[in-house]
């Protein structure tokens, strides 16, 4: 036993100095990999000019050749350990690049096409009486804001209180089953949430009903589990010592939660809620079923159909009218506004977590 371990550990120990950083190989200058990739790009350019120009193939050639070249060069000059390191670095960076392609091209395309109608009229006019050019999405923007606000109003109290129950009070069976159902809810397809809300309101008001509040109920089904999950994680992060410190001062449990646990976690809670809003603000399918679409502005979620940005974009694209280009342009701008809203919410989330974070400056 002991001899075999000694032997196996003796192998790398004796060979290490000959190839490791201690031994004879020089360290590569930092510009070398860049030069290799530059050469690879030149070769790739030559190949693709010979076989017919194609930007995608050119990039692929460059990356593959550059990676191979870097690996081989490093293997010869720096030894196998460093070479493997460089190979993995190239692979990781390539994977990152591949992951960025859809994001960048999506944002680029939406901005390019959405810029067409990104004007004042888009934000001030509805589609009432609009045939052909002009018109806007004021009614849809307001609809999205109202319905999302209602959704938040429903989901945040329920979600937060559920999370507080799970972290602070829950034990045994009830806690386990709630956790299980929250997991199930997380996976519910959004169309099912829409059908649920529709079926619920049909029971009360009869078939064909369309209301803003129905959309808020449907979106809440999607938002509640997200809020519960994020709030639960954040509340679990509050150190138990703080709760015990409060108990030891003779503070009842509910006041401890209200005055110590929640203030300590407020940054994370607010961030979680903001991200949950961002998650539901672009939902289309449930709103299609429950809220429908109108051309006029409707501020009342308890009376009749409302327009929302995603559904607006859907209808402008599928039923653009004549000439079709006007509707298609409006659809792209609606998509752009949605993306801006979601990005704005993410920025707000970051600001919140920075502003509310406990101050520990020394």
């Amino acid at each position, binding site marked *: 036993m002991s001899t075999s371990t000694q032997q196996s550990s003796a192998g790398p120990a004796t060979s290490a100095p000959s190839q490791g950083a201690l031994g004879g190989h020089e360290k590569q200058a930092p510009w070398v990999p860049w030069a290799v990739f530059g050469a690879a790009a030149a070769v790739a350019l030559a190949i693709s000019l010979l076989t017919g120009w194609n930007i995608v193939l050119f990039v692929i050639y460059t990356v593959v050749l550059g990676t191979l070249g870097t690996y081989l060069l490093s293997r010869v000059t720096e030894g196998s350990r460093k070479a493997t390191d460089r190979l993995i670095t190239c692979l990781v960076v390539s994977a990152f690049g591949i992951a960025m392609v859809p994001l960048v091209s999506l944002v680029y395309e939406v901005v390019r096409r959405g810029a067409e109608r990104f004007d004042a009229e888009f934000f001030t006019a509805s589609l009432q009486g609009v045939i052909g050019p002009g018109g806007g999405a004021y009614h849809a923007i307001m609809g999205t804001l109202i319905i999302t606000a209602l959704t938040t109003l429903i989901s945040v109290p329920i979600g937060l209180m559920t999370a507080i129950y799970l972290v602070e009070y829950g*034990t045994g069976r009830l806690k386990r089953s709630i956790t299980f159902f929250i997991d199930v809810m997380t996976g519910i397809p959004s169309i099912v949430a829409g059908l649920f809300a529709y079926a619920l309101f049909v029971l009360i008001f009869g078939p064909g009903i369309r209301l803003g509040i129905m959309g808020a109920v449907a979106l809440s089904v999607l938002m509640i589990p997200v809020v519960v999950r994020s709030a639960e994680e954040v509340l679990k992060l509050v*150190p138990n*010592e*703080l*709760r*015990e*410190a*409060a*108990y*030891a*001062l*003779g*503070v*009842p449990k509910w*006041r*401890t939660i209200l*005055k*110590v646990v929640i*203030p*300590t976690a*407020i940054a994370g809670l607010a961030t979680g809620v903001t991200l949950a809003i961002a998650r539901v603000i672009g939902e289309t399918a449930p709103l299609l079923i429950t809220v429908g679409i109108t051309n006029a502005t409707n501020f009342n979620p308890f009376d009749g159909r409302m327009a929302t940005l995603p559904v607006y974009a859907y209808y402008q694209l599928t039923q653009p009218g004549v000439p079709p280009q006007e509707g298609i342009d409006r659809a792209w701008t609606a998509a752009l506004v949605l993306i801006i809203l979601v990005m704005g919410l993410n920025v707000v989330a970051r600001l919140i977590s920075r502003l509310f974070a*406990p*101050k*520990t*400056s*020394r």
Partner: protein
Amino acid sequence: MAKRIDVSDLDIYYGNFKAVEGVNLSIEPRSITALIGPSGCGKSTFLRALNRMHEVIPGARVEGKVVIEGQDLYGSDVDPVDVRRQIGMVFQRPNPFPTMSIYDNVAAGLRLNAKKTSKSDMDDLVERSLKGANLWNEVKDRLNRPGSGLSGGQQQRLCIARAIAIQPEVLLMDEPCSALDPISTLAVEDLMMELKEQFTIVIVTHNMQQAARVSETTGFFNLNGVGQPGRLIEYNPTEKIFSNPDEKATEDYISGRFG
């Protein structure tokens, strides 16, 4: 207002696990009682049973009697929250509330309990408590800065100030100096000597010299083996424990010949 504590036949459980067994002792008012013993023998557990902090752990329970000045702590009509207002606690790791300023940390006991207090009364109380904890001079210019920005020793004294601000009758301290440097430790020890004029103090410590320096009475806890309950082996005046203990185990532990 210091009070006397009588413990009889106390068994303490975590679920089905008996962590401490058969403790009998009485703690004198206006004195410092030290509890020593190896890790895991149930000192913290015993201490937390004295102010009903033990039961906040799910499944934890207590059998036996703890009587403070004639009042049974575990009586059926006793509210644990009231008990904790009378018996304050300082923890091993300083744990000021991170969202609160130094001032608010000291005021926390009253504020969190929604006791209406005028601004000037509160100012007085905060100043008195911080002076009581020997921290006033170091922080009086920055009362509105976050409490978590203080050094470890200052944070621990802030926690002591927070504990004495609710004017408890007994102060329980669980290894209050184990996270502190020697100078802060001395500051806290001096503080304990002053505080015992008003409070009954029970302190858990791993530091023999500390027990010898500050306490009048010392209790030695020990356990026979892993999974066995801890027991109070000897409870005697500190001088006797450190010079001529009744039990062999105590002597072995104190002289470092243990296990």
